[in-house]
Every structure is written in C-alpha cells, then in structure tokens.
C-alpha cells in the first residue's frame, strides 16, 4: 500500500483542514444561533460565549490553512503546464481535464469556482471569531449582530461545501499525483 507525497498534501488540505472546517461549521452555526439568544441576566455566568469565540478562532485557523495549502502547495501541481507533445497527461490534471469535452467543465466550472469562492471563508470566519472574542456575552445586547454573524458564518459554510464538493470530485476525475512514493504497508507477494 503506497501513497505519493502530493496525495498526502491533498489529504491534509481536503480531509484535514477542509473536512474539519465543514464538521465544525455546522456546530458553529447552531452554537451561534442558540448561545446568543437573549437570556436572563442571572444566567449570564454560565453563558459559553468565550468558548464560542475560541471555537470560531480554531475554525478561522483551519480556513486559513486550507486556502493557503490549496493555493500555494496543491494548485501549482494541478495547473502545471504539460510539455509540448506530451501525450500522458496524468501528471497534469488541468491539461488532462481540458483535453476532453466530457471533463473540461470540471475545470472551467468546478475548479474556477472552487479556487475563488473558498477564499471568502477565512475572511468571513475570522471576522466572526474576532467579533465573538471582542464582544463575548455582549452580543445578546445587540440582537442584529447575531444576524450579521450568522449570515457570514452560514455563507462560509456553503462556500466551503462548494469547495469541498468540487475538490473531492476533481480528485476522483483528475487526481494530483506525483512526488516521492511513501510505502505505508508492505503487501503479500503472490
């Protein structure tokens, strides 16, 4: 059982940072909706606002790691130009997708959308994390603030879902492969 270093990076980017973000995102949306509803003053001491600020900060870190690793580590491998006359395009995913009308939209629609829309995620969630940390329990005194935060966190969740879906599909149709081969398990010889 073997895996290449480029495959390891796509796993870290997609299933690590991106996957964890998606898992955390649903929790964050629910927590924001639930936790900052107006409560009686005497319940304030048990309010988990600080925990939510920390939770959103971890999500922001995951979002930044996902977009930076995607843009600066994996994307250059994906868009590398194939040498003129090269017929085996397996090592050049973009060229491979564009070489056939049946797969070209995975690049022109899927990758083109994914690579840009994903960047709104760290912007939205960093804003939400900073506001949650700065205001804490005070958010309940500004009901409209909760609406603004939910709109941005919800949209970031949808955007990360779009990026995750196309990332997974692109990795099925034209995976980023190459680099050193790492042997995970030595199989039995027949």
């Amino acid at each position, binding site marked *: 059982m073997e895996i290449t270093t480029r495959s390891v990076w796509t796993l870290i980017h997609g299933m690590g940072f991106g996957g964890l973000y998606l898992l955390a995102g649903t929790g964050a949306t629910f927590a924001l909706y639930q936790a900052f509803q107006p409560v009686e*003053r005497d319940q304030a001491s048990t309010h988990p606002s600080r925990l939510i600020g920390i939770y959103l900060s971890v999500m922001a870190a995951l979002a930044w790691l996902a*977009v930076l690793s995607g*843009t*600066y580590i994996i*994307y*250059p491998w994906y*868009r*590398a130009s194939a040498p003129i006359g090269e017929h085996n395009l397996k090592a050049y995913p973009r060229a491979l997708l564009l070489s056939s009308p049946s797969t070209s939209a995975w690049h*022109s*629609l899927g990758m*083109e*959308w994914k*690579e*840009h*829309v994903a*960047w*709104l995620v760290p*912007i*939205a969630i960093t*804003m939400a994390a*900073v*506001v949650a940390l*700065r*205001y804490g329990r*005070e958010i309940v*005194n*500004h009901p*409209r*603030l909760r*609406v*603004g*935060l939910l*709109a*941005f966190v919800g*949209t970031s969740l949808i*955007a990360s879902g779009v990026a995750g879906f196309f990332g997974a599909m692109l990795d099925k149709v034209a995976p980023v492969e190459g680099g050193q081969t790492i042997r995970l398990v030595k199989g039995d010889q027949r």
Partner: protein
Amino acid sequence: MSYTLLEPKSEGTTTVIQTKQSGPAAAAILAAGIGTLALGVLTILSDKSLASKNLLAFYKPTGSLSGVTTVAVVVWLAAWVLLDRLWKHRDVSLKKVNAVSIVLLAMGVLATFPPITELF
C-alpha cells in the same frame, strides 16, 4: 461604553447596564462584505483582462489567483482598520450595516461563479 436602561424587574427598581458600542462590530461586518466583493470583482477582472491577469500573477506557479486573493485580503484588512477607527466609539445602525454587508457578500459570491463571470 453606552448605557441601556432595562425594564424594571420589580416596582421601583431599574437596572442600568453598560453595553459596548456597536461600531467595532459594524466595522468588522461591513469590512468583511467589502473584502468578499473585492474578491469577486478581482476574479472578474483577472478573467476578462489579460493585463490584469498578468499584473495579478504575484507568484508564477499559482498565477493570477495569488494576486486576486492577496489584494482582496489587503482590501478587507484596510477597510476593517479604517472603519474601526471611524466607528470605534460610536453606535452604528447594525440593521443598515447588515443589509449592505449581506448584499456585498451575495455579490461577491455570485461574481466568483463562472457562468456569472462570463456575463461580463
């Protein structure tokens, strides 16, 4: 700090609580809206203009994506710093800021969608 007078809980008593101004939060939300719109506008620019595409290729292996995202992040942070300075000690209508920011966010998302980008 601003002060909010709460409804009396029992006869003859009132509670006054200190609340933070909404300005810093409004600045953060509006700046995020501006940042996402900048991302969308730059996506269209890099797609439609060869000069912009070349200009935004800050890091060659990544192409114009490096410039589009870097400039969008810089616009977002600059807007945030500027608006925060302006509204730090003010109460700003979050209703209006939310409405404008959500429109900017929606426009930013739509502008990154390739069939929309193709319309320009």
